[in-house]
Structure formats: structure tokens, C-alpha cells
């Protein structure tokens, strides 16, 4: 069970309201741009080799030469945060894309054929929905071993029902519209109706859903890495860094955990604000 399943993938009302404030939206967009730059060019921007031990003191405080301090092994935290950004950002993207494609396909097929196909698809979705996302991820780790691959695949499946339920509803509504009947009467082939008209009409909804899903996926994946089941040390995935820094917390050196944690929280907040914008755009398109 993640917040994703709880919220049914909807934008929290808080974020919806926040998205109406222009300055907040601009801040969120700038933050996200920064995160994307980190994810793409992180290793190039890093001032130190992220895996080089003792470039500074053990658990060194924030200073001019180490702007986020150094970790228990004397590695530069800022460099590690930069080099870990790629995995921390792209893994949730994979989850969102996979669950979006799978969920939307299932939903469109179910809405298109109806009848027993719809029934079977509903049953599949019920079963997936009955397994909390975290449990599914842990199951996948037990199957395929520790690492990011298993949790990413598991979460793609865990998020599928959210996308699928939403898109199925949208697809049924779209199929019921007069222009669909008109297309059929004109003799447009089923394939053309499905791929040139139905799917494009549903895309804004799927994109909006994916934006919101990204934030949730990021939190879930970081939690799994925090549990020690996702990315493995010495990788500098943010979840791993948060977990690895736990011992240093008690010695009064919170930097190793707190900076990556802050990045996760800020990224998710920014994505939620952007997601609210995208949802408003998608809903505007619909009417």
C-alpha cells in the first residue's frame, strides 16, 4: 500500500490549490529543471569522484569545499547526490511509462470489447489491487534478487490498476460520444478508430496520471532502497544514501541522510505541483 493506491492516483487537493499560484508553479518548474539536469549530467557536474574515499574528513560538516559535507567514509555527499540522481529519477520514469502503457492497453482493450474481456480484465486488476505495492516489490525481490530491476517491474504492475481504472472509464465515455458512432457509420476501420481517435483522445488523461504517478513511484522506490532491497551500496541512489547515513545520525552528522531525503521530498513536491497543472490541462481538454 502506497499513497498512490490510497489516493487512487489523484492529485491531492493541497497540490491542486497550490498549482493555482503562479509563483509556486514557476518555483516547481525551476526545481524540476534542476533535478533533470542533475539526472542527465550529474556525474559531469560532480566536483569529486563520488566513490573516492576520504576526499574529506569522515562525517565532515558542510563547508566551502564540500557544500553538503562528507559521509562516514569521507566521500563528498554533493558528488554522490549528483551521481545518484540518474537512478533516483529514471527508475520512477520507467515505472510510470511501463504502468501507463500496460494499464492503458488493458483498459482500452477492456472498454473496446466489453463483455467477458472486460470481466477478466477487472478480475486481474482486483487481484493486483489486493497486493499492496510494497509487498509486490518485496515479492519481486525474493524472486529476482536485490537491485532496482525487480522493484521497478513490481511497481509497474502495482500502479497498473490506478491507470487502468481511470483510462477504462475515460475510454467508455469516449466510445459513447456521437463522433465515435459517426466514424463507424462512415466505415472507418476499427483499428483506425482505436489508434487515430480513441487513444489520442485519452492521451492527456494518461499523461496527467503519469506525472502524478512519478512522485509516488519515486517515494516507493526510495523506501525500497531504504529497506536495503533496491539499489545496493556503494551505489549513490538517494534511498541508499538515506539508509547508509542512519548510523551517522547518532553521532550528530545528519548530512549524509538529510540531503538526499530533502531532495526526494522537494522533487516529489515539485512534481505534484506540476502534476496538478497537467491534470487541469487534461481536464480542460476533455470538456
Amino acid at each position, binding site marked *: *500500500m*502506497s*499513497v498512490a*493506491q*490510497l*489516493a487512487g492516483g489523484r492529485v*491531492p*487537493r*493541497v497540490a491542486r490549490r*497550490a498549482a493555482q499560484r503562479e509563483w509556486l508553479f514557476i518555483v516547481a518548474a525551476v526545481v524540476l529543471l534542476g533535478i533533470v539536469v542533475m539526472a542527465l549530467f550529474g556525474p559531469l557536474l560532480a566536483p569529486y569522484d563520488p566513490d573516492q574515499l576520504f576526499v574529506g574528513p569522515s562525517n565532515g560538516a558542510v563547508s566551502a569545499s564540500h557544500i553538503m559535507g562528507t559521509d562516514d567514509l569521507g566521500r563528498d555527499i554533493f558528488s554522490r547526490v549528483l551521481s545518484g540522481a540518474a537512478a533516483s529519477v529514471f527508475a520512477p520514469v520507467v515505472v510510470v511509462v511501463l504502468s501507463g502503457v500496460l494499464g492503458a492497453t488493458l483498459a482500452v482493450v477492456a472498454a473496446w470489447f466489453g463483455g467477458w474481456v472486460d470481466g477478466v480484465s477487472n*478480475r486481474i486488476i*482486483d*487481484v493486483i489491487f*489486493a*497486493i*499492496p505495492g*510494497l*509487498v509486490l516489490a*518485496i*515479492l519481486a*525481490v*525474493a*524472486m*529476482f*534478487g*536485490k537491485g532496482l530491476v525487480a522493484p521497478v517491474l513490481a511497481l509497474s504492475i502495482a500502479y497498473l490498476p490506478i491507470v487502468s481504472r481511470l483510462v477504462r*472509464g475515460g475510454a*467508455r*465515455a469516449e466510445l459513447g460520444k456521437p463522433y465515435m458512432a459517426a466514424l463507424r457509420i462512415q466505415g472507418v476501420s476499427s483499428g483506425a478508430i482505436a489508434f487515430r481517435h480513441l487513444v489520442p483522445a485519452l492521451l492527456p488523461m494518461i499523461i496527467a496520471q503519469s506525472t502524478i504517478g512519478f512522485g509516488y513511484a519515486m*517515494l516507493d522506490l*526510495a*523506501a525500497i532502497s*531504504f*529497506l*536495503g*532491497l533496491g539499489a545496493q551500496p556503494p551505489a549513490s541512489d538517494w*534511498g541508499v544514501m*538515506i*539508509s547508509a*547515513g*542512519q548510523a551517522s*545520525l*547518532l*553521532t*550528530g552528522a*545528519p548530512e549524509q*541522510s*538529510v540531503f538526499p*531525503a530533502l531532495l*526526494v*521530498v522537494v522533487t*516529489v*513536491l515539485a512534481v*505534484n505541483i506540476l502534476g496538478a497543472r497537467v491534470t487541469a490541462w487534461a481536464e480542460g481538454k476533455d470538456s
Partner: protein
Amino acid sequence: MNRATIRPLLGKLGGLLLTLFLASVVIFAALQLTGDPIAAITGGVRPTPELIETIRAQYHLDDPIWLQYLRWLGGIVTGDLGTSFVYKTPVVDLIAPRIGITVLLVLYTVVLIVVFGIGSGILAARRGGATDKAVLVATSVGVALPTFVVAILLIWLFGRELGWFPVYGAGEGLLDNLYHLTLPAISLSVLYIAYLSRITRGAVVAQLGSEHVDTARVRGIPSEQIFRRHVFLNASPQVLSISGATIAGLFAISAIAEVAFGIGGLGSLLTEAAARKDLPVVQVISLMLVALFVVVNAVVDVIIAAIDPDSAKPRRNA
């Protein structure tokens, strides 16, 4: 509840059992077919072919998968949960001593979520003004604070700076347990308190602005009574459904707090078992979590149906 509400519920019960059955098949088959039990059982020691034979026979690994499934399910029903690959002890002996602490942690968390989530939501909705603003700001931050982030902040703050609460282990005896579980429960609850607070506030505000409440006011009914009988009761299905889903999921995400604070509960056992490919343990705990999740959600559905019979009727677009 009349017959019209009970029939759809019976249908739901059937669907629920089918879902549980299918989920159990998925959990069992997925692990049984892909896992490498021999490596987990021998713990990395290179086994001789004879040893492999013995192990396969001992764990019935050569039987067809459906027979293995039936034996597993039959065992669970009769209380035989199998044998851990790693510890070589009955799974039930691993689970039994750990259930209590997880249940206690979840209950503690639920109390915090219900009291502060619903409480602050109602407060914000009824007081409005500065109180509403304050709750809005607090919950806006709260919904972005996942368990592991709150956990490390609390460990830093209390473990190092303040020292009011222990940050490791579960303690001994109920009172000491509760003392030890305070920070884990807070770390699990923050995000959901914020979320439930928003939901509650929204539901209550919607009711406060509705015509039937205006009517009650015009009739001169005391505002306390209006709130209890007209506002809160009508807002409760929405609040309950979110609370229920939260509670159902807490048994799973409890793992994060257990690992962060070094508590030997079900979640930390599941995490460790998954890391070591201890399939029998993973299968049983996963099934328990899924069953709990499904049952709690169903119970909440029934309660909501009792309050609001309309919710039990099949929705047209659902």
C-alpha cells in the same frame, strides 16, 4: 441493513474470496517457479548432487506445482506454515513472536492517525480562518513526508539531540513497548495524518455548506447536535473509506519503520526473508498482509454500507 444492501455485499464477499484465492496462487506460484530454493537452503555452500536430491525430496520440490500449492494451502489452513529455508525452523515459530509488536505498532499508528488526522480536519473546517490556514500549511508539508524521511529526522532529533525517546528496538513489557514505539508510530503516521486531515476537512466543509445543514440551522437545532447528527455522520463514509484503506496498508508499510528503528516485527522479518530468498517465510507473510489488506478494506465497506446504503449499490461507471 435490509436485503437490498445485503445482496450486493454477498456478491462482494464472493469476489473477495476469489480475489484472495487468485492472489494466493500468484504469491505461491511466482516464487516457487522463479526462486532458487537450493541456494537459499544451503546458504551458499556448494551442494553435492546427493544433497540436492535430499533437499528436493524434503521440500517436495519435484512434485507438480499444483500439488505443491495444494499442500501449502492445506498446511496454512491447518496451521502448518512450512519450514524456513534459512533458519530451518517452522515458519510459525518465526512469525508468532513477531506479530504482537507489529500489531501494536499499527494500532498505535492508527490511534495517532485517527485522533490527529480527523481531529485537525474537523478543527480546520469548523474554525476556519487562521486555524484553517495553519492546518493547510502543516498538511501541505506533511503529505510530502514519507515514513523513511520522518524516521531519519526523528532518529537525528531524539537519538542525538533530545534523547526523550529511544530510537532502537521495541523494549520489554507493554508500557516500555509503547515508549519504544512512539517514534516509529509517529514516522508512520505523519503522511497519513496530513492526508486524512485534508480529506476530513473537505468532507466536513462540503457538508457544512449543504442545504440540509442550512435547514437544520433554520429550525434552530443546536450547532453541536447539527454537527454530530448532520455534518459528521454524512461526512463519515468518505473519511472511513480513506481511514480503512490506510489501516489496511499500514501492516505492509510498517516494515519501513521496523527496519529504520530496529524493531523485530513481521515487516522486518519479511524484508530480511526477501533479501535472503527465504521463500516459505516470504510467501506466508505476504499472504497474511494481502489477506489483512483485503479483509480490512471489506470490513470498512460493510461499515460504510451500514451508514450509507447507497454506497453498496453497484456504481454505474465503476
